[in-house]
């Protein structure tokens, strides 16, 4: 059963330099108890998407400019602040990359965990709360019992702080956990502990997880389905096995070939994706990946590709997808050079062509 259904979500952020097209009409769905990974590089809009889903965008500078987010039938885009406050923490919880900046430095771990647990229902007796806190510490594998509850965030290591965040997020057995780069910045052995913990606990409570990450290795080990984001759009969605086995979007192909692996042959260079992602203040007229794409055709410069189904649960937004063989090679089979951008100089900004189909 579908827990979360995102349709055509668009997010704009106003900055002193202009409006950033952070998220451009993405659609996603998450089933109950399922783990969906959103993978992409810096600036692709994956974290902004995560914040939008919990309605935690720093409004009004960042705003949802269109689309719907249905969580168990409730549209979170139009929901009242009251409804949202009820949902957050109880049904939808979120953990972030850097727990040091989300934990309050002047409150003890125990005080903050109690706050998450009580959610405003103060005036209850202390003993059951303390027992529950100790239970939570135990659940996430934090040693020290009551002494731990009296510690401050700075007295804990990064891994321990993330455990505190996980305890707070899962205290209410939410139906959806949004985890934004929860292990980035942690050492690999600690990462293994944290991912292990999140996997085990969410499975027990049948909590669905949206795992936002830049790390394809984490995706491969943890999630059942993946959405790949580039420049504010979801360019490919597929079951994890399909995505790694037979990716179709040239960016996904490029990302897989650019990722070093301990399993790979080190005799050959990685296939780097040349160039850098486009400026999202002035997004390109056609496919955002066209300037870096070896598969591009003339139409890619002018026409934004829409997601289309290419297999079971497999969608791709691309005019000229990679074949299975090409995906394995990491380069197009046709040797014809990719066409250069049409000559747009002198006829105004590229951005004015946005949305025009030819």
């Amino acid at each position, binding site marked *: 059963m579908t827990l979360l259904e995102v349709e055509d979500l668009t997010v704009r952020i106003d900055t002193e330099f202009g409006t950033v097209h952070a998220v451009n009409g993405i659609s996603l769905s998450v089933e109950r108890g399922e783990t969906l990974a959103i993978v992409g590089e810096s600036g692709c809009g994956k974290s902004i998407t995560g914040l939008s889903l919990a309605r935690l965008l720093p409004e009004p500078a960042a705003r949802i400019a269109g689309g719907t987010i249905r969580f168990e039938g409730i549209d979170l885009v139009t929901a009242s602040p009251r409804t949202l406050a009820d949902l957050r923490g109880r049904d939808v919880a979120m953990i972030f990359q850097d727990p040091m900046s989300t934990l309050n430095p002047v409150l003890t771990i125990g005080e903050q965990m109690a706050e998450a647990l009580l959610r405003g229902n103060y005036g209850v007796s202390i003993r059951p709360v303390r027992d529950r806190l100790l239970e939570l510490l135990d659940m996430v594998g934090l040693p020290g019992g009551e002494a731990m509850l009296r510690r401050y965030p700075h007295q804990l290591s990064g891994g321990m702080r993330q455990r505190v965040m996980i305890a707070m997020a899962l205290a209410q057995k939410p139906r959806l956990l949004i985890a934004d780069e929860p292990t980035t910045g942690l050492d690999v052995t600690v990462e293994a502990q944290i991912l292990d913990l999140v996997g085990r606990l969410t499975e027990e409570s049948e909590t669905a997880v949206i795992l936002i990450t830049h790390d394809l290795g984490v995706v491969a080990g943890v999630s059942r389905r993946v959405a790949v984001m580039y420049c504010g759009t979801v360019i490919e969605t597929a079951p994890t096995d399909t995505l790694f086995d037979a990716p179709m979007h040239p960016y996904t192909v490029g990302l897989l070939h650019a990722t*070093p692996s301990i399993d790979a042959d080190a005799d050959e260079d990685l296939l780097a994706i040349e160039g850098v992602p486009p400026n999202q203040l002035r997004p390109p007229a056609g496919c955002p990946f066209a300037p870096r794409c070896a598969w591009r055709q003339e139409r890619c410069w002018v026409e934004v590709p829409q997601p289309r189904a290419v297999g079971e649960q497999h969608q791709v937004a691309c005019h000229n997808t990679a074949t299975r063989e090409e995906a394995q090679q990491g380069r197009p089979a046709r040797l014809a050079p990719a066409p250069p951008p049409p000559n747009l100089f002198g006829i105004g900004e590229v951005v004015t062509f946005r949305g025009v189909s030819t």
Partner: protein
Amino acid sequence: MRLDPRSIDPPGARPNAGDPVLSVRHLNVEFSVPSRRGLLPRKVNVRAVNDLSFDIGRGETLALVGESGCGKSTTGRAILNLIPPSSGTVLFDGRNIAGLEERALRRTRARMQMIFQDPYGSLSPRQTIRSAVREALDVHDIGERAGRSAVVDTLLETCGIRPDLRDRYPHELSGGQRQRVGIARALATGPDLIVADEPTSALDVSIQAQILNLIRRLQRERQISFLFISHNMAVVRNVSARVAVMYLGSIVETGLTHEVLSLPLHPYTKALVSAVRVPDPAVERRRERIVLSGEQPSLMELPSGCPFHSRCWLRKQIPTSNRCADERPVPRTISPGRTVSCHFAEELG
């Protein structure tokens, strides 16, 4: 396989190698830090790098890999004498760095360069990138003055900086481009050794691949030796034929990268390798993960004996021995170029 505990090969020494560019023996680095223990403030010594020995041959790359706080960056800096070692020797081209006077040290430094994780921090915000690279030539007085701008252009070209970017300032460049400038500047003095400290850790995967390919090209074409410091095993696999694994200031294992990855011998290396994620779901399902309990202890409370014994998951299999807690294991040579610092590596192998 039985190991000969009396083996006297220095750890990290390579079989059949010529004179190494860099030869490090019994390197120790200590910091004096204020103690939090007790009533009165006092200073205690913390040993960040503990009795390290290794060689790097000409044109060879050695990777130092380990988790944060293991002393890998400190080692890199101590080698360039940016942090004075408290004891031990660092021989660069056969000469002890520590004994060099100021002018000789400066001349030697031109041949040993460093690339940092964040070149933003090492580039002046008020200097164009062309002049940042030029400065390296001026400071070390390399080449004729008149020819230097051409040299700068060639260097930037080599590192893939487009001509139209060369008069820009660091803040106008992306992270990957800044790293290219950092590399160009390191190359300016024609170094024999480059210490690269996490050079791709702040970069996105697609950009990281570009920088790794650049480093691989320099390895092939310029015979530069690298000490490549990284926490990322997959990156190390890609750029370095040899690896030394560090834990809590000590090297616990050295060997050819593909051997260490396919058959790690030290229990810490086994856990570290098993924790690395492989971008392939089929492989991930098959992999068995050794999840270590707890975290790396503080250097201020260095465990007695083996630095890893407090977290060692294999120690349970040797229930009768107190040796791990009592005796610090020394690096033992298992096969040519392969050393491990564990009393029981052969029982566990």
